Protein backbone atom coordinates (compact mmCIF):
# COMPACT_ATOMS: atom_id res chain seq x y z
CA UNK A 1 0.00 0.00 0.00
CA UNK A 2 2.67 2.48 1.00
CA UNK A 3 4.40 1.90 -2.27
CA UNK A 4 1.26 2.73 -4.20
CA UNK A 5 0.78 5.96 -2.30
CA UNK A 6 4.29 7.06 -3.06
CA UNK A 7 3.84 6.55 -6.75
CA UNK A 8 0.66 8.56 -7.11
CA UNK A 9 2.49 11.74 -8.05
CA UNK A 10 4.40 10.14 -10.89
CA UNK A 11 6.80 7.38 -11.64
CA UNK A 12 10.27 8.76 -12.33
CA UNK A 13 11.69 5.62 -13.89
CA UNK A 14 8.76 5.25 -16.25
CA UNK A 15 8.90 8.97 -17.04
CA UNK A 16 12.55 8.64 -18.06
CA UNK A 17 11.86 5.67 -20.33
CA UNK A 18 9.02 7.58 -21.98
CA UNK A 19 11.26 10.59 -22.56
CA UNK A 20 14.08 8.42 -23.92
CA UNK A 21 11.75 6.49 -26.24
CA UNK A 22 10.13 9.69 -27.49
CA UNK A 23 13.48 11.39 -28.06
CA UNK A 24 14.84 8.34 -29.89
CA UNK A 25 11.86 8.32 -32.25
CA UNK A 26 12.17 12.04 -32.87
CA UNK A 27 15.91 11.65 -33.51
CA UNK A 28 15.13 9.05 -36.19
CA UNK A 29 12.56 11.40 -37.69
CA UNK A 30 15.19 14.14 -37.71
CA UNK A 31 17.52 11.83 -39.63
CA UNK A 32 14.77 11.16 -42.17
CA UNK A 33 14.10 14.89 -42.49
CA UNK A 34 17.75 15.79 -43.06
CA UNK A 35 18.90 12.87 -45.18
CA UNK A 36 15.72 12.08 -47.15
CA UNK A 37 17.33 12.62 -50.58
CA UNK A 38 20.28 10.37 -49.69
CA UNK A 39 18.07 7.58 -48.36
CA UNK A 40 15.96 7.18 -51.47
CA UNK A 41 16.89 6.31 -55.03
CA UNK A 42 13.91 8.15 -56.53
CA UNK A 43 12.80 11.74 -56.17
CA UNK A 44 9.57 12.33 -54.23
CA UNK A 45 7.75 13.54 -57.33
CA UNK A 46 9.68 11.52 -59.89
CA UNK A 47 7.39 9.35 -62.02
CA UNK A 48 8.31 5.82 -63.07
CA UNK A 49 6.09 5.58 -66.19
CA UNK A 50 6.59 1.83 -66.48
CA UNK A 51 5.38 0.97 -63.01
CA UNK A 52 2.23 2.57 -61.62
CA UNK A 53 0.99 0.68 -58.55
CA UNK A 54 4.06 -1.58 -58.55
CA UNK A 55 4.19 -3.88 -55.52
CA UNK A 56 7.00 -3.41 -52.95
CA UNK A 57 10.36 -4.91 -53.79
CA UNK A 58 12.59 -4.61 -56.85
CA UNK A 59 13.27 -1.07 -58.00
CA UNK A 60 10.82 0.41 -55.49
CA UNK A 61 11.34 -0.50 -51.84
CA UNK A 62 7.73 0.22 -50.86
CA UNK A 63 6.25 0.05 -54.34
CA UNK A 64 4.71 2.94 -56.27
CA UNK A 65 1.40 4.77 -56.09
CA UNK A 66 -1.25 5.37 -58.72
CA UNK A 67 0.95 7.95 -60.45
CA UNK A 68 4.01 5.71 -60.48
CA UNK A 69 5.77 7.71 -57.75
CA UNK A 70 8.04 5.91 -55.30
CA UNK A 71 6.22 5.45 -51.96
CA UNK A 72 9.38 5.12 -49.82
CA UNK A 73 10.86 8.32 -51.19
CA UNK A 74 7.59 10.21 -50.75
CA UNK A 75 7.11 8.96 -47.21
CA UNK A 76 10.60 10.15 -46.24
CA UNK A 77 10.34 13.52 -47.97
CA UNK A 78 6.88 14.12 -46.53
CA UNK A 79 8.42 14.18 -43.05
CA UNK A 80 9.99 17.53 -43.91
CA UNK A 81 6.69 19.14 -44.72
CA UNK A 82 4.59 17.53 -41.99
CA UNK A 83 7.05 18.08 -39.16
CA UNK A 84 7.93 21.54 -40.43
CA UNK A 85 4.36 22.77 -40.67
CA UNK A 86 3.43 21.27 -37.30
CA UNK A 87 6.35 22.84 -35.46
CA UNK A 88 5.90 26.20 -37.17
CA UNK A 89 2.17 26.22 -36.37
CA UNK A 90 2.70 25.31 -32.72
CA UNK A 91 5.43 27.95 -32.42
CA UNK A 92 3.11 30.62 -33.78
CA UNK A 93 0.30 29.42 -31.52
CA UNK A 94 2.54 29.45 -28.42
CA UNK A 95 3.87 32.95 -29.11
CA UNK A 96 0.53 34.49 -30.09
CA UNK A 97 -1.49 32.67 -27.44
CA UNK A 98 0.99 33.38 -24.66
CA UNK A 99 1.12 37.04 -25.57
CA UNK A 100 -2.65 37.36 -25.45
CA UNK A 101 -2.85 35.41 -22.19
CA UNK A 102 -0.02 37.42 -20.69
CA UNK A 103 -1.54 40.80 -21.40
CA UNK A 104 -5.10 39.70 -20.57
CA UNK A 105 -4.08 38.05 -17.31
CA UNK A 106 -1.78 40.83 -16.15
CA UNK A 107 -3.89 43.82 -17.16
CA UNK A 108 -7.25 42.36 -16.17
CA UNK A 109 -10.22 44.71 -16.60
CA UNK A 110 -12.00 45.22 -19.92
CA UNK A 111 -9.24 44.04 -22.31
CA UNK A 112 -9.29 40.77 -20.41
CA UNK A 113 -13.07 40.54 -20.66
CA UNK A 114 -13.13 41.27 -24.38
CA UNK A 115 -10.35 38.81 -25.19
CA UNK A 116 -11.93 36.06 -23.15
CA UNK A 117 -15.31 36.52 -24.85
CA UNK A 118 -13.60 36.28 -28.25
CA UNK A 119 -11.92 33.06 -27.12
CA UNK A 120 -15.32 31.76 -25.99
CA UNK A 121 -16.59 31.97 -29.56
CA UNK A 122 -13.47 30.21 -30.88
CA UNK A 123 -13.81 27.48 -28.30
CA UNK A 124 -17.47 26.90 -29.06
CA UNK A 125 -16.19 24.49 -31.71
CA UNK A 126 -14.31 21.25 -31.58
CA UNK A 127 -10.82 22.25 -32.73
CA UNK A 128 -10.69 20.00 -35.78
CA UNK A 129 -14.05 21.32 -36.96
CA UNK A 130 -12.80 24.88 -36.60
CA UNK A 131 -9.62 24.01 -38.49
CA UNK A 132 -11.68 22.30 -41.17
CA UNK A 133 -14.04 25.22 -41.62
CA UNK A 134 -11.32 27.87 -41.76
CA UNK A 135 -9.11 25.77 -44.03
CA UNK A 136 -11.99 25.05 -46.41
CA UNK A 137 -12.85 28.72 -46.65
CA UNK A 138 -9.28 30.01 -46.74
CA UNK A 139 -7.90 27.45 -49.20
CA UNK A 140 -4.85 25.20 -48.91
CA UNK A 141 -1.13 25.88 -49.14
CA UNK A 142 1.66 25.80 -46.58
CA UNK A 143 1.24 29.32 -45.18
CA UNK A 144 -2.53 28.97 -44.82
CA UNK A 145 -2.18 25.60 -43.11
CA UNK A 146 0.28 27.02 -40.58
CA UNK A 147 -2.08 29.92 -39.94
CA UNK A 148 -5.13 27.68 -39.53
CA UNK A 149 -3.46 25.21 -37.16
CA UNK A 150 -1.93 28.04 -35.14
CA UNK A 151 -5.29 29.78 -34.95
CA UNK A 152 -7.14 26.79 -33.52
CA UNK A 153 -4.41 26.04 -30.98
CA UNK A 154 -3.66 29.55 -29.76
CA UNK A 155 -6.78 29.94 -27.54
CA UNK A 156 -5.70 27.04 -25.31
CA UNK A 157 -2.31 28.67 -24.73
CA UNK A 158 -3.94 32.01 -24.06
CA UNK A 159 -6.10 30.48 -21.33
CA UNK A 160 -3.26 28.44 -19.88
CA UNK A 161 -0.90 31.40 -19.64
CA UNK A 162 -3.63 33.75 -18.42
CA UNK A 163 -4.48 31.45 -15.51
CA UNK A 164 -0.81 31.13 -14.63
CA UNK A 165 -0.19 34.90 -14.90
CA UNK A 166 -3.08 35.68 -12.60
CA UNK A 167 -1.44 33.71 -9.81
CA UNK A 168 2.10 34.81 -10.59
CA UNK A 169 1.28 38.52 -10.61
CA UNK A 170 0.23 38.31 -6.96
CA UNK A 171 3.55 36.79 -5.85
CA UNK A 172 5.66 38.98 -3.52
CA UNK A 173 8.65 39.36 -5.81
CA UNK A 174 6.50 40.59 -8.69
CA UNK A 175 4.78 43.03 -6.35
CA UNK A 176 8.21 44.17 -5.12
CA UNK A 177 9.48 44.73 -8.65
CA UNK A 178 6.35 46.69 -9.50
CA UNK A 179 6.53 48.95 -6.44
CA UNK A 180 10.24 49.58 -6.97
CA UNK A 181 9.30 51.32 -10.21
CA UNK A 182 9.97 48.77 -12.94
CA UNK A 183 7.97 49.46 -16.09
CA UNK A 184 4.84 47.53 -17.07
CA UNK A 185 6.57 45.64 -19.89
CA UNK A 186 9.74 45.23 -17.80
CA UNK A 187 7.92 43.38 -15.01
CA UNK A 188 5.99 41.39 -17.54
CA UNK A 189 9.01 40.33 -19.54
CA UNK A 190 11.48 39.67 -16.73
CA UNK A 191 9.30 38.21 -13.98
CA UNK A 192 5.81 37.26 -15.04
CA UNK A 193 6.50 35.65 -18.42
CA UNK A 194 9.30 33.23 -17.43
CA UNK A 195 7.30 32.05 -14.43
CA UNK A 196 4.11 31.52 -16.38
CA UNK A 197 5.41 29.26 -19.12
CA UNK A 198 5.82 26.01 -17.16
CA UNK A 199 2.57 24.39 -18.36
CA UNK A 200 3.24 25.55 -21.91
CA UNK A 201 6.50 23.63 -21.98
CA UNK A 202 4.70 20.39 -21.17
CA UNK A 203 1.79 20.94 -23.55
CA UNK A 204 3.77 22.09 -26.60
CA UNK A 205 5.31 18.71 -27.57
CA UNK A 206 1.95 16.95 -27.21
CA UNK A 207 0.49 19.73 -29.30
CA UNK A 208 3.05 19.19 -32.08
CA UNK A 209 1.81 15.65 -32.48
CA UNK A 210 -1.76 16.81 -32.51
CA UNK A 211 -0.93 19.52 -35.07
CA UNK A 212 0.48 16.85 -37.37
CA UNK A 213 -2.71 14.82 -37.08
CA UNK A 214 -4.76 17.92 -37.89
CA UNK A 215 -2.60 18.72 -40.88
CA UNK A 216 -2.81 15.17 -42.22
CA UNK A 217 -6.57 15.09 -41.59
CA UNK A 218 -7.07 18.29 -43.57
CA UNK A 219 -4.90 17.00 -46.40
CA UNK A 220 -6.76 13.70 -46.37
CA UNK A 221 -9.95 15.65 -47.08
CA UNK A 222 -8.22 17.51 -49.91
CA UNK A 223 -7.71 20.76 -47.99
CA UNK A 224 -3.94 20.55 -47.65
CA UNK A 225 -0.96 21.10 -49.90
CA UNK A 226 -1.36 21.01 -53.70
CA UNK A 227 -0.80 17.66 -55.47
CA UNK A 228 1.62 16.02 -56.05
CA UNK A 229 3.55 17.43 -53.07
CA UNK A 230 4.65 14.59 -50.80
CA UNK A 231 2.54 14.82 -47.62
CA UNK A 232 1.36 11.94 -45.46
CA UNK A 233 -2.34 12.81 -45.31
CA UNK A 234 -2.53 13.39 -49.05
CA UNK A 235 -0.69 10.13 -49.71
CA UNK A 236 -3.15 8.21 -47.53
CA UNK A 237 -5.99 9.88 -49.38
CA UNK A 238 -4.58 8.90 -52.76
CA UNK A 239 -4.10 5.32 -51.57
CA UNK A 240 -7.53 5.05 -49.95
CA UNK A 241 -9.07 3.57 -53.08
CA UNK A 242 -6.40 0.88 -53.27
CA UNK A 243 -7.29 -0.49 -49.84
CA UNK A 244 -10.57 -2.02 -50.98
CA UNK A 245 -8.62 -3.81 -53.72
CA UNK A 246 -6.21 -5.14 -51.12
CA UNK A 247 -3.24 -2.93 -52.13
CA UNK A 248 -1.81 -1.86 -48.79
CA UNK A 249 1.45 -0.20 -49.74
CA UNK A 250 0.11 3.09 -51.01
CA UNK A 251 -1.69 4.10 -47.81
CA UNK A 252 -0.34 2.01 -44.92
CA UNK A 253 3.30 3.28 -44.92
CA UNK A 254 2.50 7.02 -44.84
CA UNK A 255 0.03 6.48 -41.99
CA UNK A 256 2.50 4.33 -40.10
CA UNK A 257 5.19 7.00 -40.40
CA UNK A 258 2.73 9.63 -39.26
CA UNK A 259 1.71 7.46 -36.31
CA UNK A 260 5.31 6.85 -35.26
CA UNK A 261 6.17 10.52 -35.53
CA UNK A 262 3.13 11.63 -33.51
CA UNK A 263 3.89 8.90 -31.00
CA UNK A 264 7.39 10.34 -30.58
CA UNK A 265 5.91 13.69 -29.59
CA UNK A 266 3.29 12.02 -27.36
CA UNK A 267 5.86 9.91 -25.51
CA UNK A 268 8.05 12.94 -24.95
CA UNK A 269 5.12 15.07 -23.76
CA UNK A 270 3.76 12.34 -21.49
CA UNK A 271 7.21 11.75 -20.01
CA UNK A 272 7.72 15.46 -19.35
CA UNK A 273 4.32 15.65 -17.71
CA UNK A 274 5.02 12.62 -15.55
CA UNK A 275 8.34 14.09 -14.50
CA UNK A 276 6.75 17.45 -13.69
CA UNK A 277 4.18 15.63 -11.54
CA UNK A 278 6.80 13.69 -9.63
CA UNK A 279 8.94 16.77 -8.93
CA UNK A 280 5.94 18.68 -7.68
CA UNK A 281 5.43 16.08 -4.97
Amino acid at each position, binding site marked *: *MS*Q*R*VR*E*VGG*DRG*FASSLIIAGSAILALVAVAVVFAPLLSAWGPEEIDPLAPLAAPGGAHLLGTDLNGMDVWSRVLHAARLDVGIAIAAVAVAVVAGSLVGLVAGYRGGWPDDVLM*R*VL*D*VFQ*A*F*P*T*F*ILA*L*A*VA*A*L*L*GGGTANLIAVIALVNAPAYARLVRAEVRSVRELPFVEASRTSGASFWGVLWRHVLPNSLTPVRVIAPLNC*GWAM*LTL*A*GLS*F*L*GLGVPVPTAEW*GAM*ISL*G*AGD*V*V*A*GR*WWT*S*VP*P*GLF*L*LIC*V*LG*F*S*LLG*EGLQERADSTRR
Partner: protein
Amino acid sequence: MRVLRFLLRRLLQLVPVLLGVVVVTFLLVRVLPGDPIRTILGPNATEADAAAARARFGLDQPLWRQFLDYVGGLFTGDFGTSIQSGTSVGAEMAVRIGPTMELVVIALTVALLLATVLGIWSARNVGRFGDHTVRVAALIGNSVPEFWLGLVLVLVGYSVLGWFPAPSGRVDPDTDLSLITGADLLDAALTANGPAFVSALEHLALPVATLVIAIVAPLLRSVRASALEVLASEAYTAAAAHGLKDRLLLRGYLVRAALVRLPALAALVFGFSIGSTVLVEYVFSWQGFGQWALRGLLYRDYPVVQASVLVIALFYVVVFLIADVVHAILDPRVRI
Protein backbone atom coordinates in the same frame (compact mmCIF):
# COMPACT_ATOMS: atom_id res chain seq x y z
CA MET B 1 -34.28 24.80 -7.32
CA ARG B 2 -30.57 25.66 -7.14
CA VAL B 3 -29.91 23.40 -10.08
CA LEU B 4 -32.63 25.15 -12.06
CA ARG B 5 -31.20 28.59 -11.34
CA PHE B 6 -27.73 27.38 -12.30
CA LEU B 7 -29.13 25.94 -15.50
CA LEU B 8 -30.91 29.17 -16.35
CA ARG B 9 -27.82 31.27 -15.73
CA ARG B 10 -25.69 28.99 -17.86
CA LEU B 11 -28.27 29.02 -20.65
CA LEU B 12 -28.23 32.81 -20.63
CA GLN B 13 -24.45 32.78 -20.88
CA LEU B 14 -24.76 30.71 -24.04
CA VAL B 15 -26.72 33.43 -25.82
CA PRO B 16 -23.78 35.78 -26.53
CA VAL B 17 -21.54 32.86 -27.54
CA LEU B 18 -24.06 31.53 -30.03
CA LEU B 19 -24.80 35.02 -31.30
CA GLY B 20 -21.07 35.44 -31.85
CA VAL B 21 -20.99 32.16 -33.75
CA VAL B 22 -23.91 33.25 -35.96
CA VAL B 23 -22.31 36.62 -36.79
CA VAL B 24 -18.80 35.29 -37.34
CA THR B 25 -19.97 32.43 -39.59
CA PHE B 26 -22.25 34.69 -41.59
CA LEU B 27 -19.45 37.17 -42.24
CA LEU B 28 -16.58 34.73 -42.72
CA VAL B 29 -18.35 32.62 -45.30
CA ARG B 30 -19.09 35.76 -47.35
CA VAL B 31 -15.80 37.57 -46.87
CA LEU B 32 -13.49 34.68 -47.70
CA PRO B 33 -12.93 33.79 -51.35
CA GLY B 34 -15.30 31.50 -53.23
CA ASP B 35 -18.68 31.99 -54.87
CA PRO B 36 -21.54 29.52 -54.35
CA ILE B 37 -23.39 30.71 -57.45
CA ARG B 38 -20.50 29.91 -59.80
CA THR B 39 -20.42 26.33 -58.49
CA ILE B 40 -24.02 25.62 -59.54
CA LEU B 41 -23.88 27.31 -62.94
CA GLY B 42 -22.23 25.63 -65.85
CA PRO B 43 -19.13 27.05 -67.54
CA ASN B 44 -21.25 28.68 -70.26
CA ALA B 45 -23.41 30.74 -67.89
CA THR B 46 -23.62 34.44 -68.65
CA GLU B 47 -23.45 37.34 -66.20
CA ALA B 48 -27.23 37.62 -66.49
CA ASP B 49 -27.72 33.98 -65.48
CA ALA B 50 -25.46 34.54 -62.47
CA ALA B 51 -27.36 37.69 -61.49
CA ALA B 52 -30.69 35.86 -61.77
CA ALA B 53 -29.45 32.99 -59.62
CA ARG B 54 -28.03 35.44 -57.09
CA ALA B 55 -31.42 37.14 -56.87
CA ARG B 56 -33.17 33.81 -56.43
CA PHE B 57 -31.18 33.10 -53.26
CA GLY B 58 -31.37 36.69 -52.04
CA LEU B 59 -27.64 37.18 -52.45
CA ASP B 60 -28.18 40.45 -54.35
CA GLN B 61 -29.54 42.07 -51.18
CA PRO B 62 -27.30 44.27 -49.01
CA LEU B 63 -25.40 42.38 -46.32
CA TRP B 64 -27.46 43.69 -43.39
CA ARG B 65 -30.66 42.65 -45.16
CA GLN B 66 -29.35 39.12 -45.75
CA PHE B 67 -28.32 38.92 -42.13
CA LEU B 68 -31.73 40.01 -40.84
CA ASP B 69 -33.44 37.51 -43.13
CA TYR B 70 -31.16 34.76 -41.90
CA VAL B 71 -31.59 35.53 -38.20
CA GLY B 72 -35.31 36.04 -38.65
CA GLY B 73 -35.53 32.61 -40.29
CA LEU B 74 -33.59 31.05 -37.41
CA PHE B 75 -36.25 32.17 -34.94
CA THR B 76 -38.88 30.28 -36.90
CA GLY B 77 -36.63 27.24 -37.31
CA ASP B 78 -35.95 28.01 -40.97
CA PHE B 79 -32.33 27.45 -41.96
CA GLY B 80 -32.85 28.62 -45.54
CA THR B 81 -32.54 26.82 -48.86
CA SER B 82 -29.46 24.95 -50.00
CA ILE B 83 -27.88 26.63 -53.01
CA GLN B 84 -26.55 23.31 -54.30
CA SER B 85 -29.69 21.20 -54.05
CA GLY B 86 -32.42 23.84 -53.86
CA THR B 87 -34.11 22.01 -50.99
CA SER B 88 -34.68 23.04 -47.39
CA VAL B 89 -31.52 22.96 -45.29
CA GLY B 90 -33.48 21.96 -42.20
CA ALA B 91 -34.95 18.91 -43.95
CA GLU B 92 -31.58 17.87 -45.37
CA MET B 93 -29.97 18.23 -41.98
CA ALA B 94 -32.69 16.17 -40.27
CA VAL B 95 -31.80 13.02 -42.21
CA ARG B 96 -28.07 13.59 -41.73
CA ILE B 97 -27.89 14.04 -37.97
CA GLY B 98 -29.26 10.59 -37.06
CA PRO B 99 -26.52 8.49 -38.73
CA THR B 100 -23.78 10.64 -37.26
CA MET B 101 -25.24 10.69 -33.76
CA GLU B 102 -25.60 6.92 -33.93
CA LEU B 103 -21.91 6.60 -34.68
CA VAL B 104 -20.77 9.10 -32.06
CA VAL B 105 -23.06 7.94 -29.25
CA ILE B 106 -22.23 4.25 -29.65
CA ALA B 107 -18.52 4.96 -29.90
CA LEU B 108 -18.58 7.26 -26.88
CA THR B 109 -20.49 4.71 -24.81
CA VAL B 110 -18.10 1.91 -25.67
CA ALA B 111 -15.13 4.20 -25.03
CA LEU B 112 -16.49 5.26 -21.61
CA LEU B 113 -17.01 1.65 -20.53
CA LEU B 114 -13.60 0.62 -21.79
CA ALA B 115 -11.93 3.62 -20.13
CA THR B 116 -13.61 2.93 -16.79
CA VAL B 117 -12.66 -0.73 -16.66
CA LEU B 118 -9.11 -0.30 -17.96
CA GLY B 119 -8.48 2.92 -16.02
CA ILE B 120 -9.41 1.44 -12.65
CA TRP B 121 -7.57 -1.77 -13.39
CA SER B 122 -4.51 0.21 -14.44
CA ALA B 123 -4.64 2.34 -11.27
CA ARG B 124 -4.90 -0.72 -9.02
CA ASN B 125 -1.82 -2.15 -10.70
CA VAL B 126 0.04 1.14 -10.76
CA GLY B 127 3.73 0.95 -11.63
CA ARG B 128 3.47 -2.67 -12.73
CA PHE B 129 3.94 -4.02 -16.22
CA GLY B 130 0.19 -4.15 -16.95
CA ASP B 131 -0.25 -0.50 -16.00
CA HIS B 132 2.65 0.56 -18.19
CA THR B 133 1.29 -1.48 -21.08
CA VAL B 134 -2.13 0.14 -20.80
CA ARG B 135 -0.55 3.59 -20.69
CA VAL B 136 1.65 3.04 -23.72
CA ALA B 137 -1.29 1.51 -25.60
CA ALA B 138 -3.33 4.60 -24.74
CA LEU B 139 -0.54 6.82 -26.04
CA ILE B 140 -0.48 4.88 -29.29
CA GLY B 141 -4.27 5.17 -29.56
CA ASN B 142 -3.92 8.90 -28.98
CA SER B 143 -1.34 9.20 -31.76
CA VAL B 144 -3.07 7.20 -34.46
CA PRO B 145 -4.61 9.15 -37.36
CA GLU B 146 -8.23 7.95 -37.23
CA PHE B 147 -8.81 8.08 -41.00
CA TRP B 148 -5.78 5.88 -41.56
CA LEU B 149 -6.84 3.49 -38.82
CA GLY B 150 -10.23 3.21 -40.53
CA LEU B 151 -8.51 2.28 -43.79
CA VAL B 152 -6.33 -0.30 -42.04
CA LEU B 153 -9.41 -1.86 -40.44
CA VAL B 154 -11.08 -1.96 -43.88
CA LEU B 155 -7.97 -3.54 -45.33
CA VAL B 156 -7.89 -6.26 -42.68
CA GLY B 157 -11.61 -6.67 -41.93
CA TYR B 158 -12.92 -6.45 -45.48
CA SER B 159 -10.19 -6.93 -48.09
CA VAL B 160 -8.17 -9.65 -46.33
CA LEU B 161 -10.55 -11.44 -43.97
CA GLY B 162 -13.87 -10.59 -45.60
CA TRP B 163 -15.63 -10.47 -42.21
CA PHE B 164 -17.13 -7.02 -42.58
CA PRO B 165 -19.03 -5.28 -45.41
CA ALA B 166 -17.33 -2.91 -47.84
CA PRO B 167 -16.95 0.67 -46.59
CA SER B 168 -19.86 2.08 -48.54
CA GLY B 169 -23.03 3.01 -46.75
CA ARG B 170 -24.65 2.15 -43.44
CA VAL B 171 -26.98 -0.73 -44.19
CA ASP B 172 -27.55 -3.25 -46.95
CA PRO B 173 -30.15 -1.65 -49.31
CA ASP B 174 -31.76 -5.08 -49.88
CA THR B 175 -33.07 -5.05 -46.32
CA ASP B 176 -35.66 -2.38 -47.23
CA LEU B 177 -35.13 -0.35 -44.10
CA SER B 178 -37.64 2.48 -43.80
CA LEU B 179 -36.27 5.82 -42.68
CA ILE B 180 -37.53 7.19 -39.36
CA THR B 181 -34.69 8.80 -37.40
CA GLY B 182 -31.81 8.17 -39.82
CA ALA B 183 -30.03 6.17 -37.12
CA ASP B 184 -30.29 2.82 -38.89
CA LEU B 185 -29.92 0.62 -35.85
CA LEU B 186 -32.72 2.47 -34.10
CA ASP B 187 -34.90 2.46 -37.23
CA ALA B 188 -34.41 -1.27 -37.65
CA ALA B 189 -35.35 -1.87 -34.03
CA LEU B 190 -38.41 0.39 -34.31
CA THR B 191 -39.68 -1.36 -37.41
CA ALA B 192 -38.70 -4.82 -36.08
CA ASN B 193 -36.59 -5.36 -39.19
CA GLY B 194 -34.20 -8.12 -38.13
CA PRO B 195 -32.03 -8.39 -41.25
CA ALA B 196 -31.60 -4.61 -41.36
CA PHE B 197 -30.59 -4.60 -37.68
CA VAL B 198 -27.88 -7.19 -38.29
CA SER B 199 -26.73 -5.40 -41.43
CA ALA B 200 -26.58 -2.06 -39.60
CA LEU B 201 -24.54 -3.66 -36.81
CA GLU B 202 -22.09 -5.12 -39.33
CA HIS B 203 -21.70 -1.76 -41.01
CA LEU B 204 -21.23 -0.03 -37.66
CA ALA B 205 -18.50 -2.34 -36.36
CA LEU B 206 -15.47 -0.92 -38.16
CA PRO B 207 -16.28 2.81 -37.97
CA VAL B 208 -17.21 2.47 -34.30
CA ALA B 209 -14.01 0.57 -33.57
CA THR B 210 -12.05 3.30 -35.36
CA LEU B 211 -13.67 6.05 -33.34
CA VAL B 212 -13.33 4.20 -30.04
CA ILE B 213 -9.59 3.74 -30.49
CA ALA B 214 -9.24 7.38 -31.48
CA ILE B 215 -11.09 8.77 -28.45
CA VAL B 216 -10.57 6.32 -25.58
CA ALA B 217 -7.12 7.51 -24.48
CA PRO B 218 -7.99 10.81 -22.75
CA LEU B 219 -10.92 9.17 -20.95
CA LEU B 220 -8.72 6.34 -19.79
CA ARG B 221 -6.13 8.76 -18.47
CA SER B 222 -8.71 10.67 -16.53
CA VAL B 223 -10.22 7.59 -14.88
CA ARG B 224 -6.77 6.31 -14.00
CA ALA B 225 -5.68 9.63 -12.47
CA SER B 226 -8.88 9.96 -10.43
CA ALA B 227 -8.67 6.36 -9.26
CA LEU B 228 -5.06 6.91 -8.18
CA GLU B 229 -6.14 9.88 -6.10
CA VAL B 230 -8.83 7.80 -4.43
CA LEU B 231 -6.41 4.96 -3.74
CA ALA B 232 -4.05 7.41 -2.04
CA SER B 233 -6.81 9.09 -0.02
CA GLU B 234 -7.12 8.59 3.73
CA ALA B 235 -10.72 7.48 3.43
CA TYR B 236 -9.79 4.64 1.12
CA THR B 237 -6.73 3.64 3.15
CA ALA B 238 -8.87 3.56 6.28
CA ALA B 239 -11.57 1.50 4.58
CA ALA B 240 -8.98 -0.94 3.25
CA ALA B 241 -7.30 -1.14 6.65
CA HIS B 242 -10.63 -2.04 8.21
CA GLY B 243 -10.69 -5.07 6.00
CA LEU B 244 -13.62 -4.17 3.75
CA LYS B 245 -14.17 -6.66 1.01
CA ASP B 246 -12.52 -5.98 -2.32
CA ARG B 247 -15.80 -5.75 -4.17
CA LEU B 248 -17.20 -3.24 -1.73
CA LEU B 249 -14.04 -1.16 -1.95
CA LEU B 250 -14.29 -1.19 -5.70
CA ARG B 251 -17.95 -0.35 -5.94
CA GLY B 252 -18.42 1.91 -2.94
CA TYR B 253 -15.18 3.82 -3.04
CA LEU B 254 -13.39 3.58 -6.30
CA VAL B 255 -15.86 3.59 -9.17
CA ARG B 256 -18.01 6.56 -8.27
CA ALA B 257 -15.13 8.74 -7.14
CA ALA B 258 -13.09 7.82 -10.19
CA LEU B 259 -15.93 8.81 -12.48
CA VAL B 260 -16.40 12.30 -11.06
CA ARG B 261 -14.22 14.05 -13.60
CA LEU B 262 -15.51 12.00 -16.50
CA PRO B 263 -18.57 14.06 -17.56
CA ALA B 264 -16.56 17.20 -18.36
CA LEU B 265 -14.02 15.14 -20.21
CA ALA B 266 -16.69 13.16 -22.03
CA ALA B 267 -18.07 16.48 -23.27
CA LEU B 268 -14.66 17.45 -24.57
CA VAL B 269 -14.20 14.05 -26.16
CA PHE B 270 -17.67 14.31 -27.68
CA GLY B 271 -16.49 17.43 -29.48
CA PHE B 272 -13.29 15.74 -30.49
CA SER B 273 -15.23 12.78 -31.85
CA ILE B 274 -17.43 15.10 -33.94
CA GLY B 275 -14.22 16.24 -35.60
CA SER B 276 -13.01 12.68 -36.05
CA THR B 277 -16.40 11.63 -37.36
CA VAL B 278 -16.01 13.88 -40.39
CA LEU B 279 -12.92 11.87 -41.32
CA VAL B 280 -14.36 8.49 -40.38
CA GLU B 281 -17.56 9.19 -42.34
CA TYR B 282 -15.44 10.06 -45.33
CA VAL B 283 -13.54 6.77 -45.12
CA PHE B 284 -16.69 4.66 -44.73
CA SER B 285 -18.95 6.72 -47.08
CA TRP B 286 -21.31 7.12 -44.14
CA GLN B 287 -23.38 9.90 -45.74
CA GLY B 288 -23.87 11.57 -42.39
CA PHE B 289 -23.77 15.10 -41.07
CA GLY B 290 -20.00 15.39 -41.40
CA GLN B 291 -19.92 14.61 -45.11
CA TRP B 292 -22.88 16.89 -45.70
CA ALA B 293 -21.25 19.79 -43.86
CA LEU B 294 -17.93 19.20 -45.62
CA ARG B 295 -19.63 19.31 -49.01
CA GLY B 296 -21.39 22.51 -48.02
CA LEU B 297 -18.05 24.06 -47.06
CA LEU B 298 -16.32 23.01 -50.26
CA TYR B 299 -19.11 24.40 -52.45
CA ARG B 300 -19.54 27.52 -50.34
CA ASP B 301 -23.20 26.62 -49.86
CA TYR B 302 -23.80 29.53 -47.45
CA PRO B 303 -27.01 28.30 -45.81
CA VAL B 304 -25.56 24.79 -45.31
CA VAL B 305 -22.32 26.15 -43.84
CA GLN B 306 -24.18 28.51 -41.52
CA ALA B 307 -26.58 25.81 -40.35
CA SER B 308 -23.99 23.10 -39.84
CA VAL B 309 -21.56 25.35 -37.99
CA LEU B 310 -24.32 26.67 -35.75
CA VAL B 311 -25.66 23.20 -35.00
CA ILE B 312 -22.21 21.86 -34.12
CA ALA B 313 -21.55 24.81 -31.81
CA LEU B 314 -24.98 24.40 -30.23
CA PHE B 315 -24.46 20.69 -29.63
CA TYR B 316 -21.02 21.30 -28.25
CA VAL B 317 -21.95 23.98 -25.72
CA VAL B 318 -25.11 22.14 -24.66
CA VAL B 319 -23.17 18.94 -24.08
CA PHE B 320 -20.75 20.90 -21.92
CA LEU B 321 -23.68 22.30 -19.99
CA ILE B 322 -25.10 18.81 -19.42
CA ALA B 323 -21.66 17.66 -18.32
CA ASP B 324 -21.51 20.42 -15.71
CA VAL B 325 -24.91 19.49 -14.35
CA VAL B 326 -24.04 15.79 -14.19
CA HIS B 327 -20.78 16.68 -12.48
CA ALA B 328 -22.68 18.71 -9.91
CA ILE B 329 -24.97 15.77 -9.23
CA LEU B 330 -22.13 13.24 -9.01
CA ASP B 331 -19.84 15.32 -6.86
CA PRO B 332 -21.42 16.60 -3.65
CA ARG B 333 -18.52 19.01 -3.17
CA VAL B 334 -19.48 21.09 -6.19
CA ARG B 335 -21.48 24.16 -5.24
CA ILE B 336 -23.53 25.66 -8.01
